[in-house]
């Protein structure tokens, strides 16, 4: 039987579903590759890899960061996120982009009742905390209704924005999706008489497992991929 014109087959075709064989194949090719006498990475390729890595690790709210939050617990994750945010501040302030609004002081959320804009049956709640430099005093609360795929946030201390200059944008990290966080939509901050800004949101894409809600400040209308920094974040807990 001639098989020379068959579609390409690789050993992966034989090992699919049998990861041990895949691993064995990797061990074999690794052993052979380590015998190579000309295995030096081309300089130009190394440059591309460095650039790829830089781009990858400076994306905001990447899933790896969130997975760390989950492993480290909220406090550890908070610190890690804060360090990322500080890193992200550098390109923000070193380029000609939107200046961040300055947070004023704000009232406490304590004793300020929720006034829901839409009926919610929260499946998770959380507290927002400011993590960007200058935003440490910002506080907020989150209610997330996974069943109805909508939620509300309320903040104190998050400065009002000029919608023509820039808008806040919510990001929802869902590790069941790919590494890009779900766009939760843009919003403006207009504190009410209590000094509390209430924001309702409905992500356009389904969120199955929200592990972090984060807010950035972007150009009017928002962005597809944010350069950060993360201003405030909340790690929800099932309610």
């Amino acid at each position, binding site marked *: *039987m*001639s*098989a*020379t*014109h*068959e*579609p*390409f*087959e*690789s*050993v*992966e*075709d*034989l*090992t699919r579903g049998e*990861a*041990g*064989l*895949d*691993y*064995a*194949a*990797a*061990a*074999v*090719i*690794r*052993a*052979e*590759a*380590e*015998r*190579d*006498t*000309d*295995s*030096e*990475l*081309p300089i130009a*390729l*190394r440059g*591309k*890899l*460095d650039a*790829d*890595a830089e781009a*990858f*690790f400076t994306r905001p709210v990447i*899933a*790896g*960061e969130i*997975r*760390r939050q989950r*492993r480290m617990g909220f406090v550890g994750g908070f610190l*890690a996120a804060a360090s*990322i945010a500080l890193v992200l501040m550098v390109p923000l302030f070193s380029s000609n982009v939107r200046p961040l609004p300055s947070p004023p002081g704000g009232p406490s959320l304590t004793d300020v009742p929720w006034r829901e804009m839409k009926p919610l049956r929260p499946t998770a709640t959380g507290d927002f905390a400011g993590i960007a430099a200058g935003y440490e005093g910002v506080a907020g609360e989150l209610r997330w209704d996974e069943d109805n795929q909508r939620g509300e946030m309320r903040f104190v201390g998050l400065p009002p924005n000029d919608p023509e200059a820039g808008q806040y944008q919510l990001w929802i990290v869902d590790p069941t999706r790919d*590494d890009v966080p779900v766009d939760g939509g843009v919003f403006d901050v207009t504190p009410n008489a209590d000094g509390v800004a209430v924001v309702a949101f409905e992500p356009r894409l389904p969120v199955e497992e929200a592990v972090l809600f984060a807010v950035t400040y972007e150009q009017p209308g928002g962005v597809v991929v944010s350069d950060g920094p993360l201003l405030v974040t909340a790690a929800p807990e099932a309610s």
Partner: protein
Amino acid sequence: MTAPAQPIASEPLLPRVAQGDARAVSQCLDRYGGLAWSIAKRLLGPGQDAEDAVQDAFIDLWKYADRFEASKAGEATFVAMIVRRRSVDRLRRRTSGVQAMKSAGPFEPDTLPGVTVSDRLEAAEEADAALRALDDLPPPRGELVKLAVCDGLTHGQLAERFNLPLGTVKSHVRRGLQAVRDALGANLETNAAGVNS
């Protein structure tokens, strides 16, 4: 011409990469860049495809660094597995001539093998064990595995070259890889016993 790649025997870097340690990322490229390039070049030949495969593989590596567990896999072999998958993916596209062909799929680190590898034992021992296992295979099984895995020959090409039925080639490759897998497990058990004694 440069010196052969050095056997890789060091503390794992991927846990630090997963923590966003920029130095570990750079060290990872230093340590595994040559290995990745060598694997991609073997399967795809030097050129743009091989470069793209290496770039794809390292992006996968950054994405899934936090899923690497030194207790389940050797780091260098873990890297080799990702690079090989991405290279095979590109080889398939090239061979089929269908650019939009379904990819080999995302790298699934959760499907790591059931072998247990101690990071203390990884280094070159795992690679040596794989080569020893290949050498122990009855001819032409070892050669078939090498050609299929390292040179990317299809089973059809192997069947023609060795004048063997396609099913026989598949069986040889499969059994050869099973033997390597078993040898890796046995090697680890032996070393683990030595370490623990």
